[in-house]
């Protein structure tokens, strides 16, 4: 059809050019970010892309996940068909029909079936958005436009095929069942009408394709069809639980106060977001109605980059502040302080966007560059810097918890394990019981262990997650020095925050410790026969276990506490509805332990209610913060009969009584 070619060729060329320019214009802004450290392991990256992008592993965890998988694979295949469509539009002689029949016919068959399935999938997606949206605001005009255009594109595809079959010029007619049925509907049309129908279908198909290419892919969340795949490829090695160190040298900038201070990967993340809402549903702050929504945070970064990008490229100051009033493109300070750094957002993201490290970069800017933070934190920061514990208690009182016990100081030559008691274990009156239980269990098992006593310092977890990297850096260096001086190699911690900090964060300072969480050690000691059980812990009734974020999600320790509890009580602990990697935070991580909770429902209360649904007699935890949060939450709901115990206390019951 020569007229078609005359019109289509320039349109398509312009479209492709505009498409390329649109992508370049946006994605080149990523280059404004700071270079990411570290090399790339291409084999690992490729595997990640195959499993998570092409295999859609994380998407399949959700209802409607299969619908997305179907649409994804149909689109991958139909891209080939559409390329043929575009080429044929320009060079009518270039057609798949020129291929041998044994190749051409199967292609036609698959396209026909897949196109029909895509229409079904689109209908499914519309129904989902109307009646079961992932979150209320997911019913956007944008989403419905994308779905409509895809649907129109597919219907037009059938229009073309049906009219060609009716005109008797489709060689593969017998292999296109759906198109054949539709062709049946065209019976009775005159040749002229069929011709017109074909032209209209052809142009509808062409225009829908150009709309997708020029408007929807580059300028809507549909951009994810490319960026999400790339993001799975660029997935970070290891867990995103540690942020890069900062160099405290005059002239350096601290944290990310403007968008180009993020890393390139951070900026690319913002283009990979599909607004699926998994993160906001998993986020304890968003879930309890607070000003923090990881989905909006990522969106704000992208919008901010788009608004300020051209100015930043020219070296000019941004016009839209990154931290501001919370309007689109600005993140509010309040939102930033609501994050518990539990990592649920990152665990739930199908395309490995890392929200939490961005929040900490923004907090670093507020604390280090602006000295602006909620007033409760002033005391915390000063106590941590001056007395190396959150309460500001005199460091000389650190070993008081064991004044009634015979606990030996750690000795380089004779002691195997350092028991790093931690601030809660040393100072918090409730948590001291856990320390005592641990001390007794270690002695019973015949372990060679000791403590640093009043020379022990806080690990610095809270200040690091709160963005006070300067103070953390000082504390970490002091601790690393002490550990090196004392010849510490193996460390037992009873706090997942100490555990993660010593194990992961201190590695950045060149200190490789063998850190073991007490739940792992206790499990091992029972399994290896060092601890003999007398079975009395079975009287605790129904035990439910709550995962600590810094033990579970951030360090993948899920089984050890469960196995320890199973050994101690004789039965596997019950699970709370959201458990293991989907567990819901107690509300105390990320420095939230030391802050007031001003808005929304209390996070600990939400979690306590979830736990109580399992009708437990004992809620078992493996973290001092969780212990406090659960005990407080239970008081609020007057659940007096329910106890909260640490794994070590349950084990002590089974071994010592």
């Amino acid at each position, binding site marked *: 059809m020569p007229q078609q070619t005359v019109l289509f060729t320039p349109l398509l060329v312009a479209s492709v050019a505009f498409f390329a320019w649109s992508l370049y214009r946006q994605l080149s802004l990523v280059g404004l970010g700071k270079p990411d450290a570290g090399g790339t392991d291409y084999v690992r990256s490729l595997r990640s892309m195959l499993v998570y992008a092409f295999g859609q592993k994380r998407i399949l965890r959700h209802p409607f996940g299969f619908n997305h998988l179907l649409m994804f694979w149909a689109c991958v295949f139909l891209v080939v068909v559409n390329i043929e469509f575009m080429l044929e539009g320009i060079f009518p002689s270039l057609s798949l029909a020129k291929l041998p029949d044994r190749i051409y016919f199967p292609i036609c068959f698959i396209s026909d079936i897949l196109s029909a399935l895509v229409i079904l999938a689109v209908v499914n997606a519309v129904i989902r958005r109307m009646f079961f949206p992932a979150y209320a605001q997911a019913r956007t005009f944008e989403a419905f436009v994308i779905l409509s255009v895809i649907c129109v594109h597919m219907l037009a595809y059938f229009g073309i095929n049906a009219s060609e079959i009716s005109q008797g010029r489709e060689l593969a007619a017998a292999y296109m069942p759906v198109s054949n049925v539709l062709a049946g509907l065209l019976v009775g049309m005159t040749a002229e009408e069929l011709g017109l129908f074909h032209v209209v279908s052809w142009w509808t198909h062409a225009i829908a394709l150009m709309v997708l290419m020029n408007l929807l892919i580059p300028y809507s969340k549909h951009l994810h069809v490319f960026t999400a795949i790339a993001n799975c490829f660029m997935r970070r090695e290891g867990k995103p639980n540690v942020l890069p160190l900062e160099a405290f040298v*005059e002239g350096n900038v601290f944290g990310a106060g403007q968008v180009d201070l993020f890393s390139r990967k951070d900026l690319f993340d913002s283009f990979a977001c599909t607004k699926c809402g998994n993160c906001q549903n998993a986020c304890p702050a968003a879930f309890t109605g607070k000003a923090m929504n990881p989905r909006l945070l990522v969106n704000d970064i992208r919008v901010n980059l788009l608004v300020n990008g051209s100015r930043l490229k020219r070296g000019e100051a941004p016009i839209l502040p990154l931290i501001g009033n919370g309007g689109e493109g600005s993140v509010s300070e309040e939102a930033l302080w609501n994050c518990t750094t539990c990592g649920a957002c990152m665990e739930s993201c199908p395309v490995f966007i890392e929200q939490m490290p961005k929040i900490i970069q923004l907090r670093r800017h507020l604390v*280090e560059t602006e000295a602006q*933070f909620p007033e409760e934190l002033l005391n915390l920061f000063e106590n941590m810097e001056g*007395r190396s514990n959150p309460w500001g208690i005199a*460091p000389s009182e650190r070993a008081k918890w064991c004044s009634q016990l015979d606990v030996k100081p750690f000795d380089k030559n004779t002691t195997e394990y350092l028991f790093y008691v931690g601030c809660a274990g040393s100072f918090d009156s409730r948590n001291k019981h856990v320390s005592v239980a641990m001390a007794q269990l270690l002695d019973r098992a015949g372990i060679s262990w000791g403590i640093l006593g009043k020379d022990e310092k806080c690990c610095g977890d809270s200040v690091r997650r709160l963005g006070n990297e*300067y103070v953390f850096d000082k504390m970490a260096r002091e601790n690393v020095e002490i550990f090196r001086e004392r010849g510490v190699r193996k460390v037992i911690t009873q706090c997942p925050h100490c555990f993660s900090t010593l194990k992961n964060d201190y590695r950045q300072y060149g200190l490789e410790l063998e850190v073991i969480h007490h739940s792992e050690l206790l499990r091992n000691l029972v399994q290896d026969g060092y601890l003999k059980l007398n079975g009395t812990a079975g009287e605790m009734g129904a035990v439910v276990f709550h995962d600590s974020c810094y033990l579970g999600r951030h360090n993948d320790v899920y089984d050890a506490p469960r196995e320890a509890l199973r050994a101690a009580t004789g039965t596997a602990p019950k699970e709370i509805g959201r458990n293991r990697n989907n567990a819901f935070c107690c509300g105390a991580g990320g420095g939230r332990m030391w802050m007031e909770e001003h808005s929304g429902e209390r996070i600990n209360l939400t979690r306590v209610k979830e736990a109580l649904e399992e009708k437990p007699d004992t809620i078992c935890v493996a973290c001092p913060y969780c212990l406090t949060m659960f005990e407080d939450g239970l008081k609020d709901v007057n659940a007096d009969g329910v106890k909260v115990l640490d794994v070590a206390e349950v084990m002590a019951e089974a071994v010592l009584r």
Partner: protein
Amino acid sequence: MLIVACIKQVPDTTQVQIDPVTNTLIRDGIPFIVNPYDTHALEEALRLKDRFGCRVAAISMGPPNAEATLKKALALGVDHAILLSDRVFGGADTLATSNVLSAAIRKLHSDVDEVGLVLCGKQTIDGDTAQVGPGIASRLGYQQLTLVDRIVDLNFSGKIIRVSRKLEGRHEIVEAPLPAMLTVVRELNRPRYPKVPMRLAAAKATVEVWNNQVLKLDEQKIGLKGSPTWVSKIFSPDRAVGEILGDGFADPEGTAEMLIEKLLAKDMLPI
């Protein structure tokens, strides 16, 4: 216009213990902090700087290691930090201390700028005398406004200040001409937190040290020789052993009544 904040390095008293044998403070290994009340004086000086664009000097009398205290002040944003340090200043009581501090302020007044305000904490947490601030004011002939919890009005050009003083059970609004010396209470403000770039700059900055060759004071009026007050003994007072009243778990109401009676008998409840 220059505002002078007087700050002192004190031992972190929550960590200080008294040697039961010698009755002296065990100072070994005890970290030093900036006297908490002084941090509020410093903060107010910095707020006035933000508001009026005046300059702020922080001065401290102490041993050479008190430099750390002045570096903290530099990190918070003071323009000058001067350490008044000399062996002959050592062993000073409040009189000798106020002699040295007022001499330094007088020197600042002539060298740098006209001094409009001197701000001090209401007292230090080690000596707890609350005498140094007023001592400075009388030596300099400044108005003294103690226990300030709010600056109501300040007019540098009209040389007038109006403040609220926090007294027991009431507040007093007073007005005075400048220059004036204020001692401040905690309620005055919430001290700021140092920004990292400022900390890094302060770490590299040198704190000016003025010894007695600079101040040229009569040695009979400073240090131990200029101090009429002597500490003869420090001790922890014995505290009477308390008693347990009733059983709060078994009979909370009855126990509360017993407590109220006791307090009433000792005239400790306002009626």
